[in-house]
């Protein structure tokens, strides 16, 4: 049986209680809203991209421990990364939270604390909401992205 402590790790709590980069970004040039129709969670991701590099990234919104921590950790992980690097990290992250057998997330840094999500399929959408929204912001599709 999956252990709750695998899901709710200290770092997750820390980012839930004190989310980083949780504010509006006034000079953002990419913005997208994300929505999880299952629980009604909404998130807005702000990006400032210059020369293909994420100069700044932030988010706003209220959600569960997993979605808030994931959004917070995402902003920390992506600041200063190129768009290609960000896309790569997203793919890795997505695989980590969806695949039971994916064991090697040594290179995921702090994001590795969310690996436990893969044992809780009902919570994968919580963990990926901010990330899907980020992708939408990068592509600047401008419409609300949902987890469905």
């Amino acid at each position, binding site marked *: *049986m999956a252990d*709750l402590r695998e*899901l*709710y790790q200290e770092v997750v*709590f820390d980012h839930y209680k004190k989310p980083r980069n949780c504010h509006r970004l006034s000079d953002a040039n990419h913005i997208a809203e994300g929505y999880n129709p*299952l*629980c*009604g*969670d*909404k998130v807005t991701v702000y990006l400032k991209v210059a020369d293909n590099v994420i100069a700044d990234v932030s988010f706003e919104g*209220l*959600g*569960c*421990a*997993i979605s808030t921590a994931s959004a917070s950790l995402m902003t920390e992980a992506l600041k200063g990364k190129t768009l290609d690097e960000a896309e790569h990290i997203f793919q890795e992250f997505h695989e980590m939270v969806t695949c039971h057998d994916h064991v090697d997330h040594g290179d995921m840094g702090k994001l590795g604390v969310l690996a436990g999500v893969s044992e*809780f399929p*009902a*919570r994968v959408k*919580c963990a990926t909401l901010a990330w899907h929204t980020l992708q939408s912001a990068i592509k600047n599709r401008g419409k609300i992205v949902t987890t469905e």
Partner: protein
Amino acid sequence: MNLATENWQSIRETSTRRIAKWRQDFPILSTEVNGKPLVYLDNGATTQKPKTVIDAERAYYEEYNANVHRGVHTLSQRATDAYEGAREKVRKFINAPSSDEIIFVRGTTEAINLVAHAFGRSQIGRGDEIIVSTMEHHSNIVPWQMLCQETGAILRVVPINDAGEFLFDEFEKLIGPRTKLVGIVHVSNALGSVNPIKRIVDLAHSKNIPVLVDGAQAVAHLKVDVRALDCDFYAFSGHKIFAPTGTGVLYGKRAILERMPPYQGGGDMIRSVSFSKTEYNVIPYKFEAGTPNIAGGICLGVALDYVTSIGMDEIASHEHELLEYATNAIKKIPGVRLIGTAKEKGGILSFIIDGIHPHDIGTILDHQGVAIRAGHHCAMPVMERFCVAATARASFAFYNSFADIDTLIDGIHKVKEILG
């Protein structure tokens, strides 16, 4: 020990004895989830099935599977008799005057869509008004919005108070010469509020306006008598009353059903077809195109037999005790807020915990074998009314015990311990 506690102990002992036998009728209730005995408190989403229902489904497919209303052979006759027998059981269960006023559908959602299509598109036009309330499930909002979009009709919404009660005064103000239909939920799925249906019907009827009642959360929990309510339509789902999914009922008064055009076209709903003229069948078949969920319909009849053998009054009184016990217990936990505190309530406990998202509550409770719903309960306007994105909801059925409530309360303490 105070008197109140002593009272609960004696109620609890009687109740435990009473439901022990009922619980044995449901195989799933003795299973484990995540290594813990299942405590199923998501009955508002769907109910579990008794062995008699499961056996009846199996017996149909093993012994007399055939299409209905069209075969001369023995099996078809048996299937037709059983299916039509189920229709009569439904009639009796809700005290409808005649079994041809019972239309079999896939569920409450389809029942309401049927009315929106057949009644709405034929009798509601530009500038006409349809009245619903803030506490409707999406299935009693969206079909009307679609109808309004198509016809230019207007949707009016009766507000609710902070307890989650229907504001009758506001309803009186909204109902007017342009009102063509009132659609109202009997028991709110997100709040548990029981609405004053008879009063609503009486006022609407004094102005010759028909009333549709969404009974999805009512039929399994209180005695429904459509003749006493005098409503024009009553919709409910089989799976919320211990029958299989994909079954449901629309009751409609004969006069109004006969005036309505068909819903879907196809086999069974016709009397004769030619390329120059097609004649429609009589009610209820006019609204039942295509081969129905035969086994499901038969099993709905079996499920109604089952709850009748226990007695709706018995069920309602047990669930009332559970609700009172659970409400008292949950109110004592600091930081927990109940959403939905109407005076008249069904066995639904919607709550939030300060600083903890309902999804996290749901995951941690699930870990202890407790199944609840976390989310907006397909009633987003209710969430908006109470300024929350979501709630956690425990919803009871007659097979739930006082011990189930204790496990829920222990679980909530655990949630607070982990996430508080």
